[in-house]
């Protein structure tokens, strides 16, 4: 199998501050529907980038572009400094080994059970069976679903499927996790559980991530909470502090309308942004 970048090069590039994901004037259309128009932004190593925007603006499309599941009509997407346009099919598959993805509708394989779903990538990589089992159990414990290990996806609730999907994305310890609306359509309590998982992943494993959400509340929870390893729970950062690694990207009508930190977002005086946030 072709290699994307060697481990040494990846480390070197991360230390040199090369962005994990970089969109460079990316445009995308489906027939007459122009979804993204010249979108540019960068996501640095260790950053959690929250993507906001009204329904149907192209957030999911943007996420698929980041993983090479879709190719842009013009512009360039770079992952760890390498342009996806220049990669061939097998390099692309090698690149995706460093990326975990949680799909909007979970997209679990419904003909195999939870264990095999979570183990899928490890089996593809020919990890020894004993190690696979241990890591699957660990990932399922992380999402608190180890009891569901033998169940099939159609037997699970929406929230459980979402959590299995998160376990499947983190089991290979990727450099980058893409969460597409992990709390969409869930009740507030389950949503909070899932946001807690994201915070835990951020503060414990320090993985870079992109996260789409419709719930502003979730976005602000992410920015204002941290994971306390002593209590094992998510807690508000003391003194109204804000997580410095959490940044925002707001998209409307195919364009980036905001790209910056939490403070900048709440202080912005763009009228559309104010209306959207209120």
């Amino acid at each position, binding site marked *: 199998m072709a290699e994307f970048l060697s481990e040494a090069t990846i480390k070197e590039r991360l230390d040199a501050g090369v962005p994990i994901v970089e969109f460079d004037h990316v445009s995308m259309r489906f027939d007459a529907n122009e979804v993204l128009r010249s979108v540019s932004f960068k996501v640095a190593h260790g950053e959690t980038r929250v993507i906001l925007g009204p329904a149907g603006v192209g957030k999911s499309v943007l996420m698929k572009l980041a993983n090479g599941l879709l190719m842009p009509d013009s512009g360039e997407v770079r992952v760890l400094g390498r342009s996806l346009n220049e990669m061939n099919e097998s390099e692309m598959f090698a690149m*995706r*080994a460093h990326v975990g993805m949680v*799909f909007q509708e979970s997209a679990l394989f419904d003909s195999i059970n939870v264990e095999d779903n979570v183990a899928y990538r490890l089996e593809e990589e020919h990890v020894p069976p004993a190690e696979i089992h241990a890591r699957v159990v660990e990932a399922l414990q992380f999402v608190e679903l180890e009891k569901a290990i033998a169940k099939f996806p159609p037997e699970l609730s929406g929230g459980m499927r979402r959590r299995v999907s998160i376990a499947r994305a983190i089991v290979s310890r990727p450099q980058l996790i893409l969460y597409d609306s992990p709390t969409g359509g869930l009740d507030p309590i389950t949503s909070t559980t899932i946001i807690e998982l994201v915070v835990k992943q951020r503060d414990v494993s320090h993985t870079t991530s992109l996260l789409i959400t419709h719930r502003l509340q979730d976005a602000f929870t992410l920015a204002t909470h941290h994971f306390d390893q002593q209590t094992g729970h998510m807690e508000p950062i003391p003194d109204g502090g804000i997580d410095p690694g959490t940044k925002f990207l707001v998209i409307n009508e195919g364009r980036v309308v905001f790209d910056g930190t939490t403070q900048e977002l709440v202080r912005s005086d763009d009228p559309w942004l104010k209306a959207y946030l209120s």
Partner: protein
Amino acid sequence: MPLASPEALAKKIVSSVQEYSLLSARAVADLFSTPRYIADTYTQMDSIGFGSLPIVILTGFFTGCVLALQAAVTLKEFGAVNMTGRLVSLSMVKELGPVLTGLMVSGRNTSGMASELGSMKVSEQIDAMRALGTDPVRKLVAPRLVASVVMLFFLTIIADACGMAGGAAVSVILLRLNAGAFLHSSYMALQYGDIVEGLVKPLFSGFIIATVGCYYGLKTTGGTRGVGQSTTQAVVVSSVFIILVDFLVTQLMIGIFGR
């Protein structure tokens, strides 16, 4: 549905043919490089081969029965009833065995593949597979291709045998022919070229069943309704293709063997 202009329609057809050829070529190329999904291939062989056994045995047997009955009526006028075996075996091995097996398996498995892959496509499982670093053509299409080609070959042999058995049963029980004479005349009628013809056809049908089923499955869009549509289209297209290719192979074999 709005009427498409002839130009747009032609473009659509050309691009479908192109995509289909590309998919088939990639599936074949994937057989010659690693990783290969051997376990998936066995699962598919079980579902396509063993799963189709009942319908193939039944269609084969009753086709043989009908052939013997029909042949006897006509042959009686010429006083040649003992030629029944010859007619049954030639029609079965050269034509009806391969084509009917192809059509039956196509009805059963092309639809199965198109709907399974189609559901996976619309529920983003295909995208998830790519995101997890697996090439769906390698994992889904190549095993189905190998399984259908191999299994259709053997299923056709079984159908031929069942057809002969059916013909023999009718000849002996209903037409009061001598069993030994029936089998002897059917055996003597077959020549090398007939067998080759009968065994080359299922290779093509197997290829058509897998590639058409997977092609329509993978290009499904538009939710559950889209899955239904691609399933129907896949069965129609593969059935027509099987008969068309049967005609072409027959032509070719007549060219080669002169019969």
